């Protein structure tokens, strides 16, 4: 059980670091793009497509981290009125559904990684291989499923954190 938890934790941390790096790259690269467009009169031809492509992994790299912080918004006013044992059972059902949904997206992402690798599919202008962007999505979705399965088995629920809206 401890190693299961460690795998879930480290996979989450890898996703977190990779996602944080992408946010910083996007911020600085786009700013550089604006700077060279106006200051040097020489627009960066890569920035728009490259940073948009990086959004694909970024959209999913936070998934296991959000699970770890129990940060998904939910309607709790009925759930909170349940007695502890019933709440525990309902929480396990939630985790099972979340693992199944996450599993579906993980299968989609793994399938996409393999198929785009085999087909050589690439982005329209830069011609960057699509599988490079699907691979982190697949990794993040698998990390999420591992985390959800761990919580399903252990019954652990971390303290809730809020997300921006």
């Amino acid at each position, binding site marked *: 059980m401890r190693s299961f938890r460690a795998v879930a934790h480290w996979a989450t941390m890898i996703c977190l670091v990779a996602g944080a790096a992408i946010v910083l790259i996007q911020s*600085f690269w*786009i700013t550089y793009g604006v700077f060279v467009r106006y200051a040097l009169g020489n627009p960066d031809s890569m920035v728009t497509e490259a940073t948009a492509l990086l959004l694909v992994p970024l959209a999913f*790299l936070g998934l296991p981290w*959000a699970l770890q912080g129990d940060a998904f918004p939910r*309607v709790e006013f009925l759930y909170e009125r349940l007695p502890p044992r019933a709440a525990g059972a309902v929480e396990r059902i*939630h985790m099972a559904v979340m693992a199944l949904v996450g599993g579906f*997206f993980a299968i989609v992402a793994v399938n996409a990684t393999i198929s785009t690798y085999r087909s050589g599919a690439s982005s329209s202008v830069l011609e960057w291989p699509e599988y490079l962007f699907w691979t982190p999505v697949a990794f993040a979705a698998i990390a999420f499923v591992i985390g959800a399965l761990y919580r399903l088995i252990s019954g652990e629920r971390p303290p809730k954190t809020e997300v921006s*809206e």
Partner: protein
Amino acid sequence: MEWHVVLIGIVTLLSVLIFVGLPIPFAMAASCLPFLWKIQTWDTSLVSTQLKLWGVWVDYVLLAVPLFVFLGELVSRSQIGPRLYYVMQHAVPLRGAAAYGSVGACAGFGAVCGSSLIGALTIGSVALPEMLRLGYSPRLASGVIASGGTLSVLIPPSLILIFYGIVTNASVGQLFIAGVIPGLFLTALFLVVVKVWSMIRPQDVPADSRRERVDLGQIVLAFGPVALIATIIIVSVYFGVATTTESAAVACVVTIILAFTIGRMTLRAFLDSLSATLRTMGFVGLLLAAAALFGFVLTYYRIPQELGAAFGALNLPSHLVLISIVVFYLIVGMFLEPASITFITVPTVFPLVAAAGYDLVWFGIVYTITMEIAVLTPPVGLNLYVLQRMDRTGRLHLIDAVIGCIPFIGVMLLLIAILVAFPSVALWLPSAMK
């Protein structure tokens, strides 16, 4: 399967899953997947989902979302917000200075942050204990801060306006500009509420707010960063100097520099900003992925079109259509949070609005005000719970926060009425856009 059978089935399943407490993105995905597999085989569903996800996420406009989230997190973890509140509070020479200062600081903060929750958290974490310590009634204090936080989603930048623009294909830049005058107007209405409150219940507003003298340097340090970041976002979008996404990125870089130089940001706080951004993206990423599938199922069965036709056949006057939609959102807003409401309902509702002859940019502002009300109404009023959790004295009860918000919700409804009567309040500025 008939469209109305699918509609009833998907809405029932979604409602049940949401009300048993399943996180909303998963409830959305779980409610539409059975219908997706009814339309497609397993293998086809994998490929179509892959194409949907790629189509949704390779989007330069959508890139503004993580950047504005990051911007809000950066500002909230630096001293920019608290400093703004301090100067606002001490610079107002009126009885109730802390309440006026809170509204002003929330509006100023709203110009650099697109999230109502972060707005309420950042200003509230400083203003709430201070107001309670000074002797303001918990109802006024909580009402001012919870409602003031909502200014962040009307005054650009706004995450809700970005989500709305993505769903309806309306220009995010125009939506941002359209939010400026209503946002400032709402700020003025909030100030009027504080004034009227202090006249009706003077016991709720202490006479001595213990004002301290603020020097020019403090004023510059408080307003300078906010003015600079807001200018980068609003002016560059208004004059077409940069896209919304570019303005977000430049604002992030400038904020990083300001936060480390004059905002007393620590490395720890900076890393926390990044991790909080990723946490939000974890939710938004899956929500959009689920919304793409949900939208595909609805579109396959032509549900938005059929619903629009059925609604149109009723021959309702356009203002009745609008009132029905606003009431619908006020009710849904009691149970769901804004991002989920946007992705679940707006794809179906906006064709009705367009068919009734309303401008989609104008409706975006009306919609955003209903979403502001949504975060203030129980049982799922995010800002109310955040405030209650912030209170360390135990004096603030949820019911006080709810009652405290009522006058502010009243003026938000008044603003909707003003926008209906005078659409140019929202549309004049975008129409004058370069």
